[in-house]
């Protein structure tokens, strides 16, 4: 500004020179700015190209790895065309390997296992597992400042999409996982609820005395056969009520379920045994009728729950009734059960009249029954019946001194199981089932 005032004092010629000098400086400054902007633009372009190349190659690697792990080689339609299309458009796809990679089978097996595990988790948690996973992830997102509702919805959509993908690509693995999940669902809460039920129903309690003779192989086989027969009767009743003829798979599954239920009933909890019978029968029938399908898990669950309910209620009611019988009736019941046991063992039982048996250590015992085989005496039977029945001191002495002294101990819940399990198998509870029954010959999708 002082230069401009000096030029004014000096005259017009100096003013024109001053203006020319300023114009030259201004042009030089504009040129410098344009060069700097051009340099910045080139740098930005280079950085963007580099970033794009890195991102695209990373996405391609992820997509390729996922596709090789998730897509079964035997299934022709690719479930993820969009990802692969994108990879092809942005960058040439890597050439397919001429032979499967060394870890290919392992990856495929892992994919099946993952699908099965996800199916088991979904079935075990009644589908709540997906909500839990999505909710936990959404909470993490919320901590990082994202919208929790939107994140939860996005993650749930992702879980559902993955379940649908499993159903499409690994139907057998997912169905098997679901059935196993239902099995665990029946087993674990059933163990807790079964004990709770026993606690609530005193008649269902009572441990066998330590000296009681365990079942021999012949008795176990008879029990299993009886269970199988009950299964057949149940299927026949189902056929009659539904006016149809069951397939061999239906009857085979019924035999498997009834047999397993009868063997499980040995432990005394009829609700658990009935649940096991219902679950096994449903799974076995689906398997024998062509394979597990999408309804198998839900049907097995319903069968188990219905079996446990019917078997548990009938078994508890019968046990309660038996437990309340007068002592004379309990005496007769215990003796009759011992006679049945002798019959199954192949022994004949002597007359009702009791006779004393002298003990080597002094005194004598009065066994309830004596058994014979081919006319020869076999065993002396001391029967016990009741939740709290124990041996007397003289009977303890007999167990120690006599080799052919057998103690049979039955409890009311045994009779409850003997009637509760068949009720659960024969009872036409399929009315209450929401899952469609399999058509004969139905196969897994």
């Amino acid at each position: 500004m002082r230069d401009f005032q000096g030029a004014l004092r000096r005259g017009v010629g100096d003013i024109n020179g001053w203006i020319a000098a300023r114009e030259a400086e201004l042009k030089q400054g504009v040129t410098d700015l344009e060069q700097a902007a051009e340099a910045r633009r080139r740098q930005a372009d280079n950085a963007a190209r580099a970033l794009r190349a890195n991102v695209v190659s990373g996405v391609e690697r992820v997509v390729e790895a996922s596709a090789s792990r998730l897509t079964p080689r035997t299934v022709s339609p690719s479930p993820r065309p969009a990802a692969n299309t994108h990879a092809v458009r942005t960058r040439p796809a890597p050439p397919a390997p001429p032979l499967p990679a060394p870890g290919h089978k392992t990856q495929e097996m892992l994919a099946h296992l993952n699908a099965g595990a996800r199916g088991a988790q979904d079935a075990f948690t009644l589908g709540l597992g997906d909500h839990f996973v999505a909710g936990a992830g959404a909470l993490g997102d919320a901590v990082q400042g994202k919208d929790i509702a939107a994140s939860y919805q996005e993650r749930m959509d992702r879980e559902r999409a993955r379940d649908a993908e499993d159903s499409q690509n690994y139907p057998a693995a997912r169905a098997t996982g679901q059935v196993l999940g239902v099995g665990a669902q029946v087993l674990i809460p059933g163990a807790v609820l079964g004990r709770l039920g026993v606690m609530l129903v005193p008649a269902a309690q009572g441990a066998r005395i330590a000296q009681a003779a365990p079942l021999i192989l012949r008795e176990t086989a008879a029990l299993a056969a009886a269970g199988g027969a009950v299964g057949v009767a149940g299927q026949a009743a189902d056929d009659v009520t539904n006016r149809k003829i069951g397939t061999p798979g239906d009857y085979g599954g019924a035999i498997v379920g009834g047999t397993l239920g009868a063997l499980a009933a040995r432990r005394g909890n009829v609700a658990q045994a009935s649940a096991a019978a219902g679950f096994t029968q449903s799974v076995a029938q689906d398997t024998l009728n062509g394979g597990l399908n999408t309804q198998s898990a839900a049907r097995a669950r319903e069968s188990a729950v219905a079996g446990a309910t019917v078997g548990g209620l009938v078994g508890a009611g019968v046990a309660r009734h038996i437990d309340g019988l007068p002592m004379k009736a309990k005496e007769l019941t215990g003796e009759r059960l011992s006679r049945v046991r002798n019959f199954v063992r192949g022994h004949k039982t002597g007359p009702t009249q009791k006779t004393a048996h002298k003990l080597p250590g002094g005194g004598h015992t009065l066994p309830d029954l004596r058994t014979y085989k081919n006319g020869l005496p076999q065993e002396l039977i001391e029967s016990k019946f009741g939740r709290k029945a124990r041996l007397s001191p003289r009977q303890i002495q007999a167990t120690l001194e006599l080799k052919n002294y057998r103690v049979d101990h039955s409890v009311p819940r045994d009779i409850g199981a003997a009637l509760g399990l068949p009720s659960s198998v024969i009872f036409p509870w399929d009315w209450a089932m929401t899952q469609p029954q399999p058509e004969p010959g139905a196969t897994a999708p």
Partner: protein
Amino acid sequence: MRATLIGVQGVELEVVLAALGLEPISGAPTGDWVDCDYSCRTFPGGWIVVTSQLNLDLATDLELAASTTDQMAVGCEMYSIPMHSYAHGYRNGQLEWSVTHDPDDEARPLAVEGTPPAIVAELGAKALKAQADENGVDFAFDVPMQLVAHYTGFVYDEDEATDWVRLRATAARPVRPERPRRSLWWPLLLIGLLFLILWRWWTIP
């Protein structure tokens, strides 16, 4: 096994048997006490013991027997399968005490009613102490039989006498058939199941 033992003191055998509607089987050999439906034998102290495995009823038959004497009458009944036993004591025909062992009643393994003799408390305490020491053995079950043994001298699981007289019921013996309590539970269950099956049958299109 089920057995009923009745002991009566201070009365003739024939009188007791007549009251119970029993008579000796003429010509039958003697045996041990479980050889016949009914047996009887005399014991020191003027006691007569009548036993039966099936057909004596303690509640009614002991009262009949007790009415024949102005001294003591004791009796017990045992069910060895559910391990239930009980004993009654009469004096001058009047019920004086009773002791019951119910295995399901854990709070009172020995329920005593009336005015029992001191021996009841002694036997009970001994049995309960042994039971506490040796878990899994029912010592209290024997207490009612031990009470009868205390009075009559007859120990049911040690007696080796073979001179028990075999008896049979006379026409005068009141018939007391075993009538188990009627229950509507089973018929109702069967009717219910039948109804459900029929209903299912008719409702299927």
